[in-house]
């Protein structure tokens, strides 16, 4: 067969700034962990980070570490250690790979930043909005490191948002303050908290605008780009650094749109991706879609870090609302409607659902939704079996063939 030039992912000019933001985040944590100069809170990905910032904590996100373990393909080697101490291979592979990583004293932070280990926490703070597993994950560390753990228990399968749900989350959040004050060794500062809320809101507005540039035809970036560039939205939530970063990224994306710079040369198909990324195969999949001239333009995953409901005038209530309106905690009818809206905005012609073996909460294919939405929109759908981190659950050849056959199917339409 003739050797053709393979399409490459277009690099972002702001990549250097991205690297700096992420590196600073980890160096600051490492410094504090070693010297005790600042208190450290571990927080689940959509936990009350703004409140923690308001208390003066540096915030570390184990789910981000989980994604790094997946992306560096260290996870599959480390998961079995957690399995061996009773954490099933069927539960969250962020959890099992992260615990395995701690047990084996191996972290991707060493290769990336020459940091020996994850920062030592002063308190562990969870919100079960992602899943119940985060609580059990933090509970292991709480026992292991003898560190206090507090958390928020979210409502699930929510249809219409009711005030009692928002108020409950707001009250649960507020009730964390005494424990946080004790761990922080200082009093809660409402102004600092409101400032973090405002910064989080600003970053969310910018992040949403960044994601929405993918509605342009051709799209200036792909899901694979977005999974990387969402880093500051996750780890620097509630900081000025995140706001500054997304201003730069948005400018670059808008310039791409104005110049009709396509992320994927000769964009032929536009796809919606549902569910978690397959971290260890991000690059392989990105290349495969590029070779098929197909751009993944929308996802629920990247949209999960938009909290533009946040309002410093009513910080607790708006936090309660932002964390209750999340896609992941909503019912099937809401999710279906959400995907329809995505279809109208992003004009995709195919939908791919990732059925992640260890992440039922973020696999939306299990109750007939792909079939319903595909029929309703007249857009073909495909389900890929895999996992976020555990590559033992992923058959690369099958996934590759399924994707290729799916694009052939779209070509025939």
């Amino acid at each position, binding site marked *: *067969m003739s050797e053709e030039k393979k399409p490459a992912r277009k690099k972002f000019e702001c990549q250097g700034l991205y690297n700096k933001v992420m590196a600073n985040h980890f160096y600051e944590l490492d410094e504090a962990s070693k010297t005790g100069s600042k208190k450290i809170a571990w927080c689940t990905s959509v936990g009350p980070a703004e409140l923690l910032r308001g208390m003066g904590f540096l915030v570390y996100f184990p789910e981000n570490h989980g994604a790094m373990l997946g992306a560096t393909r260290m996870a599959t080697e480390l998961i079995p250690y957690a399995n061996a101490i009773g954490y099933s291979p069927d539960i969250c592979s962020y959890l099992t790979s992260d615990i395995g990583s701690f047990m084996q004293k191996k972290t991707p932070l060493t290769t990336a930043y020459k940091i020996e280990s994850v920062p030592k926490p002063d308190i562990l703070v969870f919100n079960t909005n992602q899943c119940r597993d985060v609580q059990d994950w933090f509970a292991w560390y709480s026992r292991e490191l003898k560190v206090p753990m507090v958390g928020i228990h979210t409502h699930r399968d929510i249809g219409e948002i009711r005030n009692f749900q928002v108020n409950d989350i707001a009250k649960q959040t507020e009730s964390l303050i005494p424990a946080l004050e004790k761990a922080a060794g200082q009093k809660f500062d409402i102004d600092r908290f409101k400032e973090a809320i405002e910064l989080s809101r600003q970053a969310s507005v910018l992040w949403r605008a960044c994601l929405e540039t993918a509605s342009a035809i051709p799209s200036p970036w792909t899901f694979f780009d977005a999974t990387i560039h969402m880093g500051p939205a996750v780890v620097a939530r509630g900081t000025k650094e995140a706001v500054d970063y997304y201003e730069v990224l948005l400018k670059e994306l808008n310039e791409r749109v104005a110049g009709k710079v396509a992320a994927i040369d000769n964009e032929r198909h536009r796809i919606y991706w549902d569910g978690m990324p397959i971290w260890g195969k991000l690059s392989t999949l990105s290349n495969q879609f590029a070779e098929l001239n197909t751009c993944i333009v929308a996802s629920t995953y990247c949209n999960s870090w938009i909290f533009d409901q946040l309002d410093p005038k009513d910080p607790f209530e708006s936090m309660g609302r932002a964390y209750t309106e999340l896609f992941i905690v909503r019912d099937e009818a809401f999710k279906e409607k959400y995907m329809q809206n995505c279809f109208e905005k992003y004009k995709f012609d195919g939908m791919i659902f990732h059925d992640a073996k260890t992440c039922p909460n973020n696999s939306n294919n299990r109750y007939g939704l792909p079939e319903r939405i*595909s029929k309703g929109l007249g857009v073909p759908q495909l389900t890929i079996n895999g996992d976020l981190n555990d590559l033992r*659950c*992923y058959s690369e*050849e*099958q996934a590759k063939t399924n994707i290729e056959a799916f694009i052939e199917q779209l070509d*025939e339409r």
Partner: protein
Amino acid sequence: MTDNRVLYAGVDIGASRTKVALLDLKKNLTGFSIKKSGTDFSRTAEECLIEALIMANASRDAVTRTVSTGYGRTNVTFSNDTRTEIGCHAKGAFHYFSRAMTIIDIGGQDNKVIKLDSEGRRINFKMNRKCAAGTGAFLEEMSARLDIPIEEMDGLAKQSTEMVELGSFCTVFSATEVLEKIRQGKKVPDIVKGLFFSVIKRVLEMDLITPPIVMTGGVVEHNSYLVEMIRSKTGVEALLPEHPQLTGAVGAALFAMEL
């Protein structure tokens, strides 16, 4: 010597077998070959092509274009393009039966259910999940466990008077179940029928079947009792192409014709 004939080659390198089909301009199958895929896919494809050319009484020059498919599709050195096996089974099946259909392909390591509209376009398709339950690999594993040559299983299943039904999804657990049945004194033909039924169950739970059904793949070609079982389970007569095992290769050759 130059051969003035025009032939199109389709090469299907499956997990178990490699198939080559040669079609002439009128889409007649003039030569074919089937061999174990082995470990050197490029070489097996080459050997199959040579055998198929001998059958077609044609020289290598006659092969105008080639499309390859299957797991080893990128390993074919003489291929002009590739297509997925899903696309090629659809193309091949529609060539033989030009109508809307549900294709059931039972291959060595994967199963596919593909739905076509009346124009031969794919409406949707499903492959078995990563597990090999319900594929040819399952029957091969069981034939080894029972020490029965794979080619004798179809005949044994037909002799069954009372099927022994197996409940497990998993190939390994099914093997344990089979051992238990042997211990209970169940007859081998009844167990083999149960194994065949297990394959059919795995396939039929993949998707809803819209008649007519076209069955393809090597497992069906060599085990006609599976076709009978599909009929009795669905109430629909399954159609079979001329050589079910060659359907993907024929589809690939048809794609080669269109390049």
